[in-house]
């Protein structure tokens, strides 16, 4: 795939005398269907193809991209990256260097079991129409105000090559399905849900997800929260956190602060910094039950890749291990600064994006508790199953999650629904309270944002349900 163009870009860079160059052909072809209340608002076809080039010149890093793939345009792009890096080299206080790394020469493809074009467009539209009908039919007393949904299918193709020998071609198809709905009653107001499915693969994923049935069942449960939900108990209680929230927590307060570029301050004015500072490996962050892994190599995952965008082989990274800060996410620059080898975390959104350190599939390692076992010795507590609102400060220390579907736990049994309970803890406060972890691992899809210009990349985050002791929940004002 465009190997000649990529090779030509490297040849031009070498002629210019760069320390390092990498060129990446990056293409994406996709189709999106969007509906409101079962009616198709539009069909969108997106197409993005081009080359991104990165060069190191006298310790300064330049990036350039073009979607005109003739030789003159590629040469111009490389020359601009070189020239801009060179004129900024005088401003470098500490020159950028890339560490040695094992580099891939490989090609891999993810194969769909059911290709995107194996289902007629009209049948896809019918599927989305069915969502509206089923959600509408699922409520007893309330009104479903609106249901929206989007089905997106796309194929991402890349060829990454560098002047020090990487050459990796890949093809990954991805499917995502998101829905949202609003349920209302005149007396109780509204409750709103958004949810996203996403994975690499083909239309076979729809059979696995059963999104229509799942959305309808969820709407029925959320109507219960709307009609009967009460404030959470006051005072210190035990809280069982559902895997959906656990996944978000590890993404926000383990994955992001473990990004070594963030630790070094490279994102300080944008996505922020990290409470983790150089030299903190080995420090305790949680109980011994806390192990968080980021693994790009999980087959079928949303964040799947086998080689990163610097050509470095991917592998699982144990970011927190048995409660200790264990490993950071690295590219070849941060690996050099920290004196380690890159663990293959450089990703880019598209051809016009520089590769930066990203998560792939981040999850809390499961334990051995069944769900009932998590509940059984809780005298009074709350089970937070899902969320809508969340945020975390830019050092990834103070975090907040507002429960959407939630229930009281009374003497080991789930009780009445709870409306808008707020879990607001520090990172250490969260991980330091974990005293039991479930055995069933679930993953959730997301698009993670970082970089300037902002880059959104597909990720999974997940874990099992887990239990926190001695938590005081808030409630939405």
């Amino acid at each position, binding site marked *: 795939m465009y190997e000649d163009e990529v090779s030509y870009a490297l040849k031009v860079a070498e002629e210019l005398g760069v320390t390092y160059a990498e060129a990446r052909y990056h293409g994406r072809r996709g189709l999106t269907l969007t509906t409101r209340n079962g009616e198709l608002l539009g069909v969108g076809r*997106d197409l993005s193809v081009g080359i991104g080039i990165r060069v190191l010149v006298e310790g300064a890093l330049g990036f350039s991209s073009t979607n005109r*793939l003739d030789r003159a345009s590629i040469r111009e*792009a490389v020359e601009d990256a070189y020239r*801009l890096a060179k004129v*900024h080299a005088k401003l470098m206080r500490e020159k950028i260097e890339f560490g040695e790394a094992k580099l891939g020469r490989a090609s891999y493809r993810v194969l769909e079991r059911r290709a995107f074009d194996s289902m*007629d*467009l*009209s049948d896809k539209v019918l599927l989305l129409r069915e969502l509206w009908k089923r959600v509408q039919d699922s409520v007893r007393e309330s009104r479903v105000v609106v249901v929206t949904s989007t089905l997106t299918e796309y194929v991402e193709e890349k060829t990454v090559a560098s002047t020090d020998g990487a050459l990796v071609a890949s093809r990954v198809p991805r499917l995502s399905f998101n829905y949202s709905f609003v349920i209302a009653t005149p007396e109780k107001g509204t409750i709103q849900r958004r949810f996203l499915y996403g994975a690499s693969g083909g239309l076979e994923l729809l059979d696995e997800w059963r999104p229509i049935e799942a959305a309808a069942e969820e709407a029925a449960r959320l109507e219960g929260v709307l009609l009967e939900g009460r404030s959470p108990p006051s005072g210190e209680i035990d809280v069982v956190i559902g895997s959906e929230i656990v996944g978000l927590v590890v993404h926000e307060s383990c994955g992001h602060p473990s990004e070594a570029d963030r630790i070094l301050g490279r994102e300080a004015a944008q996505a922020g910094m990290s409470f983790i500072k150089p030299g903190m490996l080995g420090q305790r962050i949680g109980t011994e039950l806390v192990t968080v892994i980021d693994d790009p190599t999980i087959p079928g995952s949303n964040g799947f890749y086998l080689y990163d965008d610097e050509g470095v082989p991917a592998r699982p990274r144990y970011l927190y291990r048995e409660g200790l800060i264990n490993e950071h996410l690295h590219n070849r620059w941060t690996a050099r600064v920290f004196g380690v080898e890159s663990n293959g975390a450089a990703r880019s959104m598209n051809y016009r994006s520089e590769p930066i350190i990203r998560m792939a599939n981040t999850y809390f390692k499961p334990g051995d508790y069944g769900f009932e076992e998590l509940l059984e010795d809780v005298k009074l507590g709350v089970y937070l199953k899902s969320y809508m609102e969340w945020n975390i400060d830019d050092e990834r220390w103070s975090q907040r999650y507002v429960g959407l579907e939630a229930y009281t736990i009374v003497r080991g049994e789930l009780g009445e629904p709870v409306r808008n309970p707020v879990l607001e803890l*520090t990172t250490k406060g969260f991980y330091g309270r974990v005293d039991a972890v479930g055995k069933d691992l679930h993953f959730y899809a997301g698009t993670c944002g970082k970089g300037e210009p902002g880059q959104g990349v597909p990720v999974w985050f997940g874990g099992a349900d887990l239990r926190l002791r001695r938590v005081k929940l808030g409630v939405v004002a």
Partner: protein
Amino acid sequence: MIRVREAAERIVSKALEKGFEEAASRVVRYRSVMVKLANSEPSVIQRWDEVIVGAYLAKERRALVVEARPSRLEEVDRVVEELAGFVSSVKESPLYAPLPEPVEVKPLSTTCDDRILEAMKDPSELAQLVVNAAHEEGAERIAGMISLKYWERAVATSTGASLYEDQAMMETYVRAFIDEGSGQWALGSRTLDKDSIEDVARSAARYAREARKPKPVEAGVYDLILSPMVVGNLMNLVAFMSSALRVMMGFSIFSQRAVGENVASSIFTLLDDARNPQLPGSTAFDDEGMPTSSKPIIEEGVLRNLLHNSKTAHKMKARTTGNAGWIMPHSWTLRVEAGDCSLDEMISEVKRGLLVTNNWYTRLQNYVEGIFSTITRDALLVIEDGEVKGAATRLRIADKLPSLLASVDVVGKELYDIKWWEVRVPTRAPYLLIRGVHTSKHLD
């Protein structure tokens, strides 16, 4: 070299040849340079040169859209041909309305600042300027970015519109660090003025100095002065919600409100100031070839306009406001009307409150009810008895957006042109004093 107007016309013509009854096309040629700064040095210098193509295609009231960054225009032709094959598989769009007939579009009286175009060749002097200005003001280190852009944009439609404009803009933001404190400021502008760029760096450093020894404060209900950075972030959210399609899709506090209803304090006015040539983001025409307009979204507290394209306008029995997006109408550039109070006067009006200089990560529990929180970032200053009495560690603003809008009590007289990571739509905004806002804080 691609000529964007000819390319747009060609795509419309090809679409009609393939059997579509209506077509519109937007072609943008875009060149940009960005210096990203961290630890007071460039972390990367990025440059883009690309052509972005969009097309709206309709047949028998079916609507299809293409968004492409193709390597050749012929690739778009193939996509159009492919989409022609989809028409029989999809149903009529509930939002269908014919493309509007062209009307006269007056160009904006804006010109591209040559200094922006010149600086794109070598922005290192500007990078040095930012670093030096912040350090002279006492910053220990800074992060941030400087971006310079030039683009040509053409829109053609099957109803006969064929429009062209070119624009330039610069954007910079700086985050400065001193001890435990940090401060951030931003600027988005049509012109490149070195003094203004230095002011951004100095403002960030001054706030960092004020925040260098923060102390914890209790969460509770406070009077908040929101800086233009924070106002910009929240007004981006209000503008997002004022898109008529988001109203229809349940992603808006205006979903249960009607135009003409009171939705904010009577001293508050927010405009989509699309024809203000001073503001980056302003434009003469939308993606349907309709002239844009500067109009209030909220005027003296009253919801005056949702943002429409011809489709949403038809559905809601309104008129297009020149905010297409073929599917989703959107704002172009925002302005909050100035008040008559200086920042010092505003501070003197506060008995117990906080000055929030920056925020990030605004998320909603419920868009219809506007239940949200956002976390403060950088300098958070404590105000007691009308004076700044030190800095605080982070809190969250955790409230309802309609309550905030209704509780605007004082509007600043100085306006600032803000654009940064958390203010994507350029916003000209003042400081605002908002009474009785709920805040929250984490447990340890």
